[in-house]
């Protein structure tokens, strides 16, 4: 665990500063897909389905040098308290793109010229950190689909509430208003410690950001272990059949 001491900071849901909400992971949730997975952080639930590799349509979008990863992030209209209009928004399109970038480094996409791998991520229920849950589910689904990958990726959001760093931000914490307010930093790591995605909203000094990254790295190790375990167990189940 990190050297950072528990400052005795009270989180609204009683978690320790470096404690992730209860996680759940499961593969094979969408039988129609080539690979699929569910991942949740507490009340934030994401499901991902992978279709492909398949021929890219329209043809002019084909890349003869390598395959294309196409990631679609979508929130169900009733996943949040105030209904969102169904369909893509500017926000969801940006998240789709950054998630694509988060996963591409580990995907051996060069093996599939002219092809596309579709990853559809849907947020069934949202309580912050949805993009992170989405990326975790997507990584699992890609592995479940048997797409060659150098590694898996794991994603978590680090929050800074006033001056305190916390792991896996909830909605309540995201809306923190006291002191310096809330800073939200979603980060995605490979198990080797490479960052494939980082975003930041709020304000933080470089020194503390370094600490935040360290915290994320530790949390991602935990997430990685769960992802690994889930995939291994899914294979065992298949063997029994």
């Amino acid at each position, binding site marked *: 665990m990190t050297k950072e001491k528990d400052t005795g900071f009270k989180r609204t849901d009683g978690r320790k500063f470096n404690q992730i909400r209860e996680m759940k992971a499961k593969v094979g*949730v*969408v*039988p*129609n*897909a080539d690979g*699929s997975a569910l991942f949740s952080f507490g*009340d934030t639930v994401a*499901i*991902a*389905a992978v*279709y492909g590799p*398949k021929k890219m349509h329209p043809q002019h979008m084909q890349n003869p040098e390598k395959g294309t990863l196409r990631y*679609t992030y*979508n929130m*169900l*209209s*009733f*996943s*949040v*308290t*105030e*209904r969102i209009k*169904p*369909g*893509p928004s500017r926000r969801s399109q940006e998240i789709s793109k950054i998630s694509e970038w988060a996963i591409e480094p580990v995907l051996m996409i060069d093996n599939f010229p002219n092809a596309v791998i*579709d990853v*559809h*991520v*849907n947020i*069934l*229920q*949202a*309580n912050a950190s949805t993009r992170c849950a989405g990326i975790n589910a997507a990584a699992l689904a890609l592995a479940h689909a048997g797409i060659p990958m150098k590694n898996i990726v794991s994603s978590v959001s680090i929050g800074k509430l006033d001056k305190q760093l916390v792991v896996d931000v909830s909605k309540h914490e995201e809306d923190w208003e006291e002191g310096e307010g809330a800073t939200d930093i979603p980060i995605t790591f490979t198990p080797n410690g490479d960052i494939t995605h980082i975003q930041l909203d709020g304000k933080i000094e470089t020194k503390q950001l370094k600490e935040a990254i360290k915290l994320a790295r530790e949390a991602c190790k935990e997430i990685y272990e769960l992802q690994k375990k889930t995939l291994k167990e899914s294979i065992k189940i298949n063997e029994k059949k």
Partner: protein
Amino acid sequence: MITSNITGNRIKEYLKLGKRFDGRNLDDFREISIEKGISKNAEGSARVKIGETDVIVGVKMDVSEPYPDSLDKGNLMVTSELLPLSSDRFEAGPPKIESIELARVIDRCIRESKFIELEKLCIEKGEKVWTVFIDIYSINADGNLLDAAGIGALVALKDAKIPKYDKKEGKVLYGEHSNERIPLKKENPLTITIHKIGESLIVDPTREEEDVSETRITIGSHKGVISSMQKGNSKEISEEDMHRVLEMMEDVWKKLFLKIEKFL
């Protein structure tokens, strides 16, 4: 993947003998499982699985202006998204006709049966009324999304609690629910879709069976009263067959209702 002719022909041959690939009778549904309250942020929600078909329905509410032709009634809006996640046949982008039809058929089943007492959802005549949104999402599409969505809408409506509303400010307090339920009639409307393949009438088709379906009739009814109906696909249906459809529908309705009653 589109069902191949060879599979399609085999389905038809089997049906001539009164048999189906999965051993069901022609008027049998696949196994149904229902969960309600699956989304904490929705006013009401349900997940309905029929065989491998998996649908999620959520109810949300908002306060808005009434329509000019119903100044003292709440509004109802049904939308559906056939998620690309749920099948390789569905693509992202604006809703296609399949999705539009699904939402409209479910809308009419609920609206025309007067299941929701919309007149009780008026807050201030001509000014403010509740709008009930029913949003349908496919998670895995393996045939008969229509009936699954119909069951989902019914269960989600029954599950829903009206959000708190601040009358002074005219604001909905999202995330806070009152104990008040949406005013609903006692009689539960259900949609049943009957498909005709060759000379056979079947219910609850799998995706493969749906692919070879020649014509289909969706009927929304409650307690023997039919309040909405839609014929789909291009093949005609004879009057006699229409009678058979109606008789079959009544039997299937009763059987189906027994299975879902405990979730209401």
